């Protein structure tokens, strides 16, 4: 069978590959959302007045940005499985219980990207003009109203370029989750390479698919930035 036939003809390998690509995007999105939640908590800790909280958030970001992500994935996968094994042992189960790989992957991406997203959010918040917050307070706005009307729309605009970078980073990081066996694009390519003995064809196809995903999302982020900048164009 030639390459074309293997992928689109009788081999029909395009199906598992595109399913893998879909999983890649899904897990990246899950990791991104988790990272946004952890990241905003970290940003609040770093912006807040509590010195201990600030210090803890600082240690978290420094550590997570200084160690390989593969180690974090190992920690969560084997650590999580160990914890599950303990719980399972309590109920009489024996042996190794693997924790769901999708959950591990999403959590790992969230934990790692939170360190980067925290910095992005912190910078975006700091970029908001102090005067606007003071004006809001002078008008008698409550805290949540100020957050919704003044802070959130502007912080989002300032944060978008940084968030776009983090998203690209996460997309590329999803490939690492293949090491714990989640069948995303990378793993799907490995499976195809293994069973057809055509590694070059499969890794190249995955390579191209990654390129498509990252360039489409790059375009989308550029569009979103343009939309967010619209109200400020005529100043």
């Amino acid at each position, binding site marked *: 069978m030639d390459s074309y036939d293997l992928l689109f003809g009788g081999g029909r390998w395009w199906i598992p590959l595109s399913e893998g690509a879909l999983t890649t995007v899904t897990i990246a999105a899950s990791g991104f959302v988790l990272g946004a939640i952890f990241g905003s908590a970290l940003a609040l800790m770093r912006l807040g007045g509590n010195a201990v909280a600030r210090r803890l958030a*600082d240690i978290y970001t*420094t*550590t997570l*940005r*200084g*160690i*390989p*992500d*593969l*180690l974090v994935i*190992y*920690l969560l996968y*084997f*650590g999580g499985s*160990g914890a599950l094994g303990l719980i399972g042992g309590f109920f009489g189960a024996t042996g190794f219980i693997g924790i769901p790989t999708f959950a591990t992957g999403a959590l790992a991406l969230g934990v790692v990207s939170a360190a980067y997203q925290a910095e992005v959010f912190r910078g975006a918040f700091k970029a908001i003009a102090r005067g606007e917050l003071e004006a809001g307070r002078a008008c008698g706005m409550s805290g949540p109203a100020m957050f919704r009307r003044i802070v959130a729309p502007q912080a989002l605009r300032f944060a978008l370029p940084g968030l776009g970078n983090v998203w690209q980073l996460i*997309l*590329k*990081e*999803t*490939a*690492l989750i*293949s*090491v714990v066996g989640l069948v995303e694009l*990378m793993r799907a*390519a*490995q499976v195809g*390479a293994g069973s057809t*003995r*055509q*590694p*070059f*064809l499969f*890794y*190249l196809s*995955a*390579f191209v698919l*990654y*390129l498509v995903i*990252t*360039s489409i999302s*790059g375009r989308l982020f550029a569009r979103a930035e343009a939309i967010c900048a619209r109200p400020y164009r005529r100043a």
Partner: protein
Amino acid sequence: MDFRFLGETFMTLLAALPLTLYLALVSSICGALGALVLALMRLSSARPLSLIARAYVFVFRGTPLLIQLFLIYYGLGQFRPSLQMLGLWPFFRDPIYCTIAALAMNTAAYGSEIVRGGLAAVPRGAVEAAIACGMSPGLRFRRVVLPLATRIALPAYGNELIVMVKATSLASTITIMEVTGIAGKLIAETYRTMEIFACAAAIYLLINFVLTRLVLTLEWWMSPDRTTRRVLEQIGETKVKVTA
């Protein structure tokens, strides 16, 4: 806490440190040279050259490093007969060479954007002064443009070097037993995840701490003017305080 186990694990992982450092060092040096070439191509007035550089950067920054590594190590293995005929097989058969090739090609793409920024930020006046002194283009580049651009690009390039140190961990996926590879093996054997993770993390943090110091020292050494030096010394001091 089992301190004996922690100590033993730390020593086992430390034995793999030279390999991690070797991978990071060689690929960073090759990658920096590649980055410089790519940046010059990108800035050159010859359109094909700048197009090639743009395409290269787009492709390597748009795909995961892991797949680049697999494409080189496993993918090219498919062409073994042709590679053997060309005499290139000993290179592509060796996981260490393949890792270095993948890391260097990857960091060259990211680094070229940093170097390009540095080259673009060289003050126009300095170049004009060099021309006025009658320097030849080669001499001008070597004596004026390159030193200034290096100094401007260094802080950002330091981040790229840290990324490289972390990226060496991917070598473990193609059977190389560097620090992460050993840590993964130990975890799978003993299931003492937390202790082993802590030891491996400590080693990487230590490397990156020393690396940031080195970059800062290099920056200090490359800035003969007093003000920049004073600022750098201040940054250095606060960083020491933060991490101590």
